[in-house]
């Protein structure tokens, strides 16, 4: 199964979990399933139409998935997705 690493900014909405299983054959499907499993997390990642907020970025195996075709990207078992938000502290 693929996994998604959730930054601490969003872990408040995952019960503190940093790595979540990702279920789905495409990224869009996986994110929809994630929204069902973690309804409190969903509004912080995406709008009601399911589009990712502009300040949330998704990387797979170290490479950013282009925003335009993120939804169509196929997810394979073993894929490691990382969510990267902008953070502001210093």
């Amino acid at each position, binding site marked *: 199964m693929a996994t998604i*690493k959730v*930054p*601490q*900014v969003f872990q*408040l*909405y995952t019960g503190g979990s*940093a790595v979540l299983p990702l279920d789905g054959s495409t990224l869009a499907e996986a994110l929809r399933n994630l929204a069902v499993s973690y309804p*409190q997390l969903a509004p*912080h990642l995406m709008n009601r139409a399911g589009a990712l*907020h*502009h*300040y949330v*970025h998704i*990387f797979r195996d*170290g*490479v*950013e998935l282009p925003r335009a075709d993120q939804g169509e990207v196929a997810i394979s078992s073993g894929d490691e997705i*990382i969510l*990267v*938000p*902008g*953070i*502001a*502290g*210093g």
Partner: protein
Amino acid sequence: MSLPALTPEEIARYSRHLLLPQVGMRGQQKLKAASVLIVGAGGLGSPIAMYLAAAGVGRIGLVDYDRVEISNLQRQVLYSETDLQFPKAEKAAERISATNSLIRVEGIVEQFNSTNAARISQGYDILVDGTDNLPTRYLLNDLAVLTHRPYVYGSIFRFEGQVSIFGLAGQPCYRCLFPEPPPPGAIPSCASAGVMGVLPGIIGSMQAAEVIKLITGIGELLSGKLLLFDALDMRADTVRVSKKDSCPVCGTKPSIHILQDYEAWCGSRIGEDFGLPATPYDISPEDLKQLMDANPAVLLLDVREEFERQISALSGSVHIPLPELMERQNTLPHDRPIVAYCRNGVRSQEAARLLTAAGFADARHLVGGINAWAEKVDPTIPVY
């Protein structure tokens, strides 16, 4: 390039650098010839300034308009208790001058903004990020791109940090990764969410290492890459960052040619933790006290996390953490005024907005949170 010679005193001082074949005499001379502006002399700025001064960077500027506060000492290792209430830039400059009297140090007690950024940064080769806010990060990035200087980026949150170098020729900038800021309040600051004290030490030290590599021309730079560090798992990931043709400042058809009003654009004011705009739900601590005295039916709703209630709480308050509020809204009365509160008014504002949208006729929130209540109404409550 003609480089300044090292004196015998400098040769003795920098011996451990000179012994590194990658640095050697020429690298140390490059460090001596270099100038670095550090914007922000807080958690990140502390290790950056201390290590660059110790390393012999010839000219270091430190910009910060803030004063040293007691809550800074948990992580801002430039300062000691005797520095409390003094301007950070002044004390930081004193401290690093004491570390290395052979370098030139300038402490600049000003708020770095689009009107003074060009003047303050004039003559500095490298811009380094020690800031604690997004407007200054976008300002630093744009200044770096427009003036063809590297921007050594670092940022932290709780136990996580990010490091990169932006703005090198042909390489991505901060806006290639983050074209626009998140809406105000979407991403909390360290002041609202906390930060592990040693984290800025780690991230700032990484930034200092990148600055030294950049100046001496050694190693593989974190340019075109973003390092993500997690101190809880002690794990580091590096992801690739691509230069974007569509970038508004370094793309093929840039729309940004001069510095902007970054506070207005980000929707947040520098120096205020959150800068949330006023809302119809706001109630000040003084007004809440009056309301509670006049109407005992007021329901105080604590939307913080459980661990925060162990630090402080308002007597008689009902506790529902913000993430659970909508699920548990049916436990709240519709026939009583509800005033939500949190630590300093960000989460509670969202709570009041959510409750109002859900049909609660009189849902408000305590501006400035329980910390403001402690300051204005009840000084027996600890501020955190």
